[in-house]
């Protein structure tokens, strides 16, 4: 299980030899006050550029490189047929303002994906415009705002459990709400605390189900009743949807609003951080507030429907990340109802197996089943001076992408592990073997990890203390 990442001492672009004369003079076409005289971008041969970026790619790790159990991120395999479809000029060389009759295929994909996602989530209508989970959250909360404004209700708070993703808090703030955080009890929503927190000031309660501990919130309907009794809305954070496909859905759990992370559940590649897509579904009267436009179909032609007077308008230019939406459409088409159900079953089986096996070496707080992920604690290693980060960095040497660490907060020295469906039993066992070895290893060795990556442990503290964010800041 030894792993060695490439360790290329690749220079910066500006440090590569330039054999081309790069001087540019001012352009006479430009008014004098606006003329540029120099531009500090290196002039290189194409082969230099190809080698530079290829050598850098060798110092990176994706789901094609190996096991990637990064909690809450659903790092499953990204199928290649979706990539080749999205690379078609028929998808890529479309301008967003072409006449509708020239983009019937694109509109059909948008329309059918809206319908598919609505059915997956048990929602009435879906907007594909938000381009990330966090933007879906912001969209949903702006819809909640508009909904309450129309009803003449002044609601200023969003309630969140302490297991919520950081984006929930930030999205609530961006939408102009005050955040009320409630503690969990035994790893799930504390119903008493929820009842105490939700009031006529509450606009929404946001819940991730299964939550970030991987535990299904079995009291979903009681939660919905408590929230709705105060006239507040229930928002579903879809980050963990991979665990419940075909088993339950947000509509069935009485959620009013829900977002999807197509780059998680529906296997579109994460791209090193993006692009993603964060469509939002709505139920009942909330549908009227969805962003503009929605794709529509009259039985003959597909079109864009802008005639939705209560819509909140736009959260992103045009129709969202079409290239990502197309990949998700292809994935859902390929998998179908049966395939997606198997995805969920395998992912959940892997999680519970891995959890049982990891528990032989590290505690996993809170009992019961897990869904897509579980959170182990590296706290017992603290007495030898080893922290969760040391475990994470040592896993790199064994060729495994580390789990998410130090989240959620309520687990001490958290290791948040999401195996997904894209791993074999051997892969799961290799992870357990690595944990077993790490537990017995010399603490100095762990603190010195990783040894086999492109670089040794990176000094993040001085990076933040004296930030150097560009070539021009290097010289200061």
């Amino acid at each position: 299980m030894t792993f060695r990442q490439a360790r290329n001492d690749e220079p910066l672009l500006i440090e590569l030899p330039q054999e081309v004369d790069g001087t540019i003079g001012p352009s006479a076409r430009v008014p004098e006050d606006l003329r540029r005289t120099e531009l500090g971008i290196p002039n290189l041969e194409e082969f230099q550029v190809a080698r530079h970026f290829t050598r850098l790619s060798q110092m990176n790790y994706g789901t094609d490189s190996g096991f990637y159990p990064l909690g809450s991120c659903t790092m499953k395999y990204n199928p290649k047929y979706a990539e080749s479809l999205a690379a078609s000029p028929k998808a890529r060389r479309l301008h967003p303002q072409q006449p509708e009759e020239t983009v019937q295929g694109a509109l059909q994909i948008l329309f059918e994906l809206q319908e598919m996602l609505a059915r997956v989530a048990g929602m009435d209508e879906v907007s594909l415009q938000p381009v990330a989970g966090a933007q879906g959250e912001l969209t949903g909360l702006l819809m909640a705002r508009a909904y309450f404004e129309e009803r003449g209700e002044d609601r200023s708070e969003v309630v969140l459990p302490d297991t919520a993703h950081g984006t929930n808090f930030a999205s609530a703030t961006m939408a102009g709400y005050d955040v009320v955080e409630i503690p969990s009890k035994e790893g799930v929503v504390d119903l008493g605390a929820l009842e105490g927190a939700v009031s006529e000031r509450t606009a929404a309660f946001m819940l991730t189900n299964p939550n970030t501990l991987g535990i299904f919130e079995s009291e979903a309907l009681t939660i919905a009743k408590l929230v709705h009794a105060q006239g507040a809305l229930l928002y579903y954070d879809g980050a963990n949807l991979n665990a419940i496909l075909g088993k339950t859905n947000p509509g069935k759990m009485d959620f009013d609003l829900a977002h999807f992370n197509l780059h998680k559940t529906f296997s579109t590649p994460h791209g090193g951080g993006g692009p993603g897509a964060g469509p939002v579904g709505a139920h009942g009267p909330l549908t009227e507030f969805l962003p503009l436009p929605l794709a529509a179909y009259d039985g003959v032609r597909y079109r864009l429907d802008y005639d939705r007077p209560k819509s909140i308008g736009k959260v992103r230019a045009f129709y969202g990340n079409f290239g990502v939406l197309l990949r998700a459409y292809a994935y859902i088409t390929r998998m179908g109802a049966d395939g997606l159900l198997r995805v969920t079953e395998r992912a959940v089986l892997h999680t519970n197996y891995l959890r049982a096996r990891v528990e032989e070496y590290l505690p996993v707080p809170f009992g019961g089943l897990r869904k897509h992920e579980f959170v182990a604690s590296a706290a017992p290693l603290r007495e030898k001076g080893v922290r969760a980060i040391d475990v994470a960095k040592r896993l790199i040497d064994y060729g495994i992408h580390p789990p998410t660490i130090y989240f959620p907060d309520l687990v001490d020295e958290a290791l948040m592990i999401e195996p997904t469906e894209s791993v074999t039993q051997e892969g799961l066992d290799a992870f357990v073997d690595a944990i077993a070895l790490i537990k017995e290893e010399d603490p100095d060795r762990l603190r010195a990890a990783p040894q086999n990556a492109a670089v040794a442990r990176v000094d993040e503290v001085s990076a933040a203390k004296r930030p150097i964010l560009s070539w021009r800041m290097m010289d200061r």
Partner: protein
Amino acid sequence: MSPAKDVLLEFLGLEDIDALFVDIPPEVRVDNLDLPAGLSEAETVRKVSRILERNRTVGEVTSYLGAGYYDNYVPALVDALLSRSEFYTSYTPYQAELSQGLLQVLFEFQSLVCELTGMDAANSSMYDASTALGEAALMARRITGRREIVIPTLLDGERKAVLANYARGPGIRVREAGYDTEDGTLDLGHLEELVGNDTAATYVEAPSFLGQLDSKVTEVQDTLSGALLIVGVHPLAQAVLRPPGDYGADIIIGEGQSLGAWMNFGGPSLGLFACRQEHIRKMPGRVIGLTKDRRGDRAFTMTLQTREQHIRKGKAMSNICTNESLLAVGAAIYLAFQGARGLRSLATNLMDRARELMGHLDGVPGFQAPLFPGSYFNEFPVAHKAPFATLRERLARHGLNGGVDLSTVLPQAAPASLFAVTDRHTPDDFQELVRALEGGK
């Protein structure tokens, strides 16, 4: 059920897979997904390809659409390098040691954006220009504590609409400064009138939404009264235009689609965001910094993370997490491929072609190009006697498509369109367009 599954279930001492879902109570259970059965890979590709076949691309219907998204040529090298799955199947580089490749590329992307814009720092992407503008307004509000933003009335409707939603939460008021109806340039007097002691920022674009190179943007810095200056740029135009930092810009945003990305029917694209050094701790989004590893070797890492939602939660600068990293990688490859000389020659070429097309269109009876006098970059407004819809239909009959409708941006003017040229257009394309327009019907 596959054999491997049985072994795992057996290990867990479970009878069947359903035993893993007993924590989902019956009241919320569904029996299955309401979706068709799956298809083979071959069937999937055939089905989706057939749907896509119904599209007619700008390669098939020669088009002059722009307004932020352009069909410029994408060098084969960009796609080839972006297909490295070490890049495109990776997550956000939280684990720096395993992600040096991507981190270095994103650091170079930030550096290249700084070279184009003259700013000290850039983040590693926003969703697109419209959301970058929204985030810039929020950032100006944080820095100044003020609650208004002034924007030009001549602005892309998409950007206005998105800004309105980003402004809603913190209650930022958006005010629109007019333009000189004679020449389409900024009305500096009106701008100055609108700017007061509650103005957090003034936003202007260079080139303007109409593609115009308006020198008045360099004078906006004298009208600010303590407000910040946000400038929206076209990254290719930056090869010939002065860096806005030279005329007082504090924050720069832009649409990076033209840096080696495809139009993709509007997304994904690339939001550019850069600022002066003194503001970096108030900047939204992910940033990559240079540091060292324990051996003392150069290394890169995500930095200033205490601005971000996963650390700071509700006090974060923004909620952004997933961004457009892969497009930033593509932009870095594109800029390295072009180099300063390639970019300069492309920018000059676009300006020349725009002038050429302008000349042709101005010669067509019933057309006036440009609508306003002045210098233009790659696009320009064209007035036409025929209503936009009539013009569009006429061109469609010839297998062509014109520019973007300007009727909502210039409601009081005669019918007008914004025509954009790209480096794919040829002189023959222009002749064909002119013939279609002169042919009437």
